[in-house]
């Protein structure tokens, strides 16, 4: 007795399934990115792409490599913990230029800059030095008395 008698239609059907599965594997091979599943259910190469984004803030170490004199002045004063680009803004274009002098950073406007942090407000921590700009300097620019890199007023030894 032949068990496969009259079973041809099943084989044809099975063949169709196998064929469809092979097509699925081929399509999947081309459609799914190569690094998908490398670390998990995502494209592993995405991290390299995100990591390749352009840096815009050079970082204070980079600034200090050339401007060590300014860093030295700053580190003696109360602004020691304030990084260069906190006031000067993003400077990677300046720092990574072949000749940094061709990309000249814009000098910050102290009337805006100082006030941003030091304008008196009941909301600020009490220990943070703050003044009402109008009363404090009578309209004079901050740098008349305070040098931003070392803001302590030079009293010439007198208290």
């Amino acid at each position, binding site marked *: 007795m032949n068990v496969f008698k009259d079973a041809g239609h099943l084989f044809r059907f099975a063949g169709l399934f196998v064929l469809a599965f092979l097509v699925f594997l081929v399509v999947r091979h081309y459609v799914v*990115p*190569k*690094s*998908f599943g490398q*670390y*998990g*259910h*995502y*494209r*592993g*190469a*995405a*991290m*390299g*792409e*995100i*990591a*390749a*984004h*352009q*840096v*815009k*803030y050079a*970082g*204070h170490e980079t600034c200090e490599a050339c401007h060590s004199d300014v860093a030295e002045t700053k580190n003696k004063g109360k602004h020691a*913990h*304030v*990084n260069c*680009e*906190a*006031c000067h*803004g*993003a400077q990677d274009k300046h720092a990574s230029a072949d000749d940094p002098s061709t990309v000249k950073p814009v000098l910050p406007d102290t009337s805006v800059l100082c006030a*941003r*942090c030091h*304008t*008196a*407000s*009941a*909301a*600020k*921590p009490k220990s*943070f030095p703050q003044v009402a700009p109008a009363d404090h300097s009578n309209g004079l620019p901050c740098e008349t008395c305070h040098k931003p890199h070392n803001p302590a007023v030079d009293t010439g030894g007198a208290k």
Partner: protein
Amino acid sequence: MNISRRQIMILLPAAAVAWKYVLAGTPEESPNYKMSEHWWSMLIDIPKCIGCGNCVRACQTENDVPDGYFRTWVERYHISDWQMSNPLGLTKPLANPMTDPQVISPDGGKEGFPVATDESGKYFFVPKLCNQCADSPCTQVCPVGATFISPDGVVLVDQTYCLGCAYCVQACPYGCRYIHPKKKVADKCTLCYHRITKGLTTACCEACPTGARQLADLKNPKDPIHEFLKTHSVQVLKPQMATGAKVFYNDLDGSVR
């Protein structure tokens, strides 16, 4: 242009090699960086924050964040004094200041905050950003695997893979995601992944003038965060959501949601 058979024989293998690199994706920018050696987090020291908005501006510059959208922002809380006798003469106070804080964040705090003249009660600033959750709700709901937690603990979005369905925007309990108005895909804080993999700190930490924000690597035993966590009262936002948030807030007030 005429190409000889000899030139074809040389060009074809070169093209094959080049194609292999195209398929492999962009090569890693920082070859010395090992993902398995880091587990990134951030420390926010609330008493140090003065609400200057430097971090918000730095983030926008560094990451090309469109106007009106924020990867990080600063909120100002005002917990008013208890009004025990109220003008309506009711028997109990009108509001519980602890559960009804007044919160403002004009343009994300990008240009700082209006001067507070009301001396009553207490004020503090709360910088917010993606909490880089270790069990993040946002990555769990992504239907296509476009957002994920990297092996070094940063929640990232693969913007070439994202469909822009915004499930993740709804899932984030901290409101840290948005759909980019031009790219039409999900966007969020990457913890400046392009910087921390090069040994730099994040743009917001670099620009913070008071050290209120500190990038921390929990896998680095020498990172000062370990000593800080041992000696300070530190919390995460919405611990009841069990998100495994990794942005730690020092001296966080209970009214912060």
